[in-house]
């Protein structure tokens, strides 16, 4: 009974589930084992406080591949997104900037700070959109193998090179700048207003241990424009029911194709015999065997936690040791008695139906990073907040609201060691509330419940090594054919019959599903099972 699985997938994160659904759809017998009592990993919804559903970790979705929505019929299984209407940046001086989905409205808003920036803003969007379109085939296909002589590989590489050549000179130059510059410097070349540049620059640092003035951060700005170009026609959105609803829809689709999914089934190790994965051992000692094992966890946990160095080549061990995780962010989820009232726009208006960036200036962001560099959490952090209950009444009781705050920087390697986060958790939570109070003066009076997650919690509870939200930084040296290690970007591992399918593989983190789908397709193509 326990050894007739074609594949056992370790971890019921959204990528593990996507992989399971594709394999089951292709007729394979699949078992998913999830450690926690709920599915989804970092894409999870939980009723932590009665009546309020928190998207505990990830909170907005952009990159989930539309092809996955179609292939797995996710709408039928309850998947639904609602586009964010705007990006709102409240300022401590009582003013604010709101960028809307309507271009003309945005132009008028930006013009209050700089007429020149207002006019350039759509041009910037156009250039980034074009570059994102160029990058898009990269995230929809397995990473090319530059060292391979397989003609198929060469063709796909040539196609990419060809596309780069096809770009007009100005865009090619822009692409090179993106690869090398810092987000702040890159934006300086376009805009003059700090009020505009600060909230734009942060998409370059989310999930990395870098500052907006660190080189290489410009590249990640591009990811922001990726979702807009592939049939979604809108960049970021809420998932109805929270991001866990995405995972549940994928799980439901997987089950409809016959996949078995177990929760509260923590894996202790992956069984390796004669250099080949044979199955898994659960923490309760049960041994489950299968023809292949697929890890839906990050590379460090997979190889050093489940497999063990003794089964791996030395070069590979070194590469995985060097693989940068360095978690830098935390999460604070709040249940509110009523909608938050920003000093600049107190009414519960449409500015609350998008994302809210506490990023008043580039210097503010860089100062926040300075502290983190030396092992402290930022006393005035960057916060990306959303009030999903404004557009999705299902996540809070009538009239009440959820305020979800992504907070950076909260370095995993904090002074006193990562375990000392246990003592610093509440102080970190207070800092976040103090920061919010600068723009929402009465925030303290309307909080009904708060949940504080430090990078330590992300590691201990969610299995994210060093609390890294993307299973490894999305910096250029850890992307494409280098993710997670040179030579191992095709979901295979040095252990035969052991595969990877999660965010630590190409094309990386975020609620994208692409690693899971591409891994499944690669396994089916190469008849691995």
């Amino acid at each position, binding site marked *: 009974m326990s050894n007739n699985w074609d594949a056992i997938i370790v971890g019921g994160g959204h990528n593990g589930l996507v992989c399971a659904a594709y394999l089951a759809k292709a007729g394979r017998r699949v078992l998913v084992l999830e450690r926690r009592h709920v599915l989804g990993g970092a894409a999870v919804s939980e009723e932590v406080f009665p009546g309020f559903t928190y998207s505990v970790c990830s909170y907005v979705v952009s990159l989930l591949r*539309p*092809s996955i*929505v*179609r292939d797995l019929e996710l*709408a039928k299984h309850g998947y*639904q997104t*609602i*586009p964010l*209407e705007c990006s709102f940046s409240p300022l401590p001086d009582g003013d604010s900037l709101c960028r809307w*989905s*309507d271009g003309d409205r945005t132009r008028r808003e930006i013009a209050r700070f700089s007429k020149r920036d207002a006019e350039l803003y759509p041009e910037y969007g156009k250039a980034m*959109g074009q570059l994102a*379109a160029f990058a*898009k085939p990269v995230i929809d296909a397995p990473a090319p193998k530059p060292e391979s002589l397989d003609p198929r590989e060469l063709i796909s590489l040539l196609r990419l090179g060809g596309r780069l050549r*096809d770009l007009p000179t100005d865009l090619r130059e822009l692409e090179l700048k993106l690869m090398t510059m810092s987000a702040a410097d890159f934006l300086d070349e376009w805009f003059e207003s700090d009020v505009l540049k600060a909230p734009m620059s942060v998409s370059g640092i989310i999930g990395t241990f870098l500052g907006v003035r660190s080189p290489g951060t410009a590249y990640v700005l591009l990811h922001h424009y990726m979702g807009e*170009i*592939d*049939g*979604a*026609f*809108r960049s970021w959105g809420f998932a*109805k029911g929270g991001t866990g609803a995405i995972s549940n829809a994928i799980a439901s689709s997987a089950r409809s194709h016959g996949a078995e999914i177990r929760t509260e089934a923590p894996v202790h190790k992956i069984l390796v015999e004669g250099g080949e994965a044979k199955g898994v051992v659960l923490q309760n000692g049960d041994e489950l065997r299968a023809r292949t094992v697929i890890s839906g966890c990050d590379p460090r946990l997979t190889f050093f936690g489940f497999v063990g160095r003794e089964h791996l080549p030395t070069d590979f061990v070194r590469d995985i040791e060097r693989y940068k995780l360095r978690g830098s962010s935390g999460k604070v989820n709040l249940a509110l008695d009523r909608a938050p009232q920003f000093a600049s726009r107190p009414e519960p208006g449409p500015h609350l139906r998008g994302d809210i960036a506490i990023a008043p200036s580039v210097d503010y962001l860089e100062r926040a990073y300075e502290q983190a560099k030396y092992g402290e959490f930022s006393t005035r952090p960057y916060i990306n907040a959303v009030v999903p209950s404004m*557009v*999705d*009444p*299902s996540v809070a009781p*009538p*009239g009440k609201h959820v305020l979800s705050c992504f907070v950076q920087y909260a370095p995993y390697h904090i002074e006193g060691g990562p375990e000392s986060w246990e003592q610093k958790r509440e102080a970190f939570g207070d800092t976040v509330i103090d920061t919010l109070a600068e723009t929402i003066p009465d925030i303290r009076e309307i909080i009904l419940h708060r949940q504080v997650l430090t990078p330590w919690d992300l590691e201990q509870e969610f299995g994210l090594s060093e609390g890294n939200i993307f299973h490894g930084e999305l910096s250029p040296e850890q992307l494409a054919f280098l993710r997670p290690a040179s030579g191992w970007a095709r979901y295979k591992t040095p252990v035969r019959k052991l595969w990877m399918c999660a965010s630590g593989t190409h094309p990386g983190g975020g609620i994208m599903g692409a690693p899971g789908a591409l891994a499944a397709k690669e396994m089916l193509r190469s008849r691995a099972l």
Partner: protein
Amino acid sequence: MAAGTLAETWARGARLLPFRAMPIPTPFHPRTSEACSSLFWKEWAGYHAVRSYDTCHEREYYALRHAAVAIDVSPLFKVDVRGPQAADFLSFVTVRSLRKLGLGRVTYLCWCDDDGKVLDDGTVMRLGEQHYRITSADPGYFWLARHARRFDVELEDVSGQIASLAVQGPTSRDLLQSVCADDLSELGFFRSMQTRLGNLECLITRTGYTGDLGFELWLPATSAVELWDTLFRAGGPFGLLPAGLDALDVSRVEAGFILLGIDYMSARRCLAEHQKSTPTDIGLERCVQLEREPFLGQAALLAERERGPAWNMAGLVIDWEQLETLFEAEGLPPSLPTAAWRGGLPVYADGRQVGRATSGVFSPTLKQNLAIGQIEAAYGQLGRVLEIEATVEHKRHRVAATVTNRPFYDPPHKRS
């Protein structure tokens, strides 16, 4: 007060446009016009109707699919039928026997001319022992009256007197429940209930044109503004928004519903025979009860059954990857209008035209490019891959389109 507001609006309209009586405001106009910041209107059956309250209908569409919206559908035509033979009469003029329609039930059907060609489609509700109401997209009072002569029935055109508001979306029931004295969980799919909303007597039907959980509210036009205010005072926590016809149109294509004048033409308005459709041609065969006492079009429809249908009303899913490739060839990311289209596109197979797609939309929920259209019966089987015209950068191409079941989108909460 409400009546005063309406009368004032009318008077203002008449002063401004003394020689133009068209279009006229609906009973909700004082509120819809206040909310319609985009000034984006169209004409619907001679009334002003909002297309979208914002510059784009998107927010309204999403509110409909995940919260609740109120759509002013007052321009629908409504005729009350009363009398001992009301059921007999309606069973004679429509394609369905209504003799067994229970009290408080609603049914969807169509009606035909003598040749079995469809004139219109709509709902019939049974409001009392001998009281029915028929709603329709086109005016049909005099046509009904002509056929009513040999029945003991009274007809009354209540179109102008009754305001109607569609409240649709997954939170619509909770919203209405918060202002309703009766238990709405008792109100099943395609049932009606006479109840009070706030202080207002109101008829509620569990019906709609969106394929979602939803209700339609019917009440005297003079109470329309008060109803609107009652709902919007309570609606905040339920995410209630007013929505216009553009959002409605996206949802009705996702739900696979046909629209008179777009997906088929009323036989009454057709200039050529081939423009007319039988119920089967437009996918309404399930409404037709053939084997029974005589009704309008029966002989022709029986003959059609012998012959077999000529057309299928098909759902089509247009291949996205092929479309994307066409855009890529122009150096462009794919882009489609967000509104539903209704221009009409030819559909091909075996190198010739085998049908026409009459409306379609890119579904934001399904991430699929959808169309509805009439396909020659021989080509209309489920799963059949046809070709549909696609224009990219003013160049015409053909891309694959697969015949699919309607509704495309059918959430379980619709019937829950």
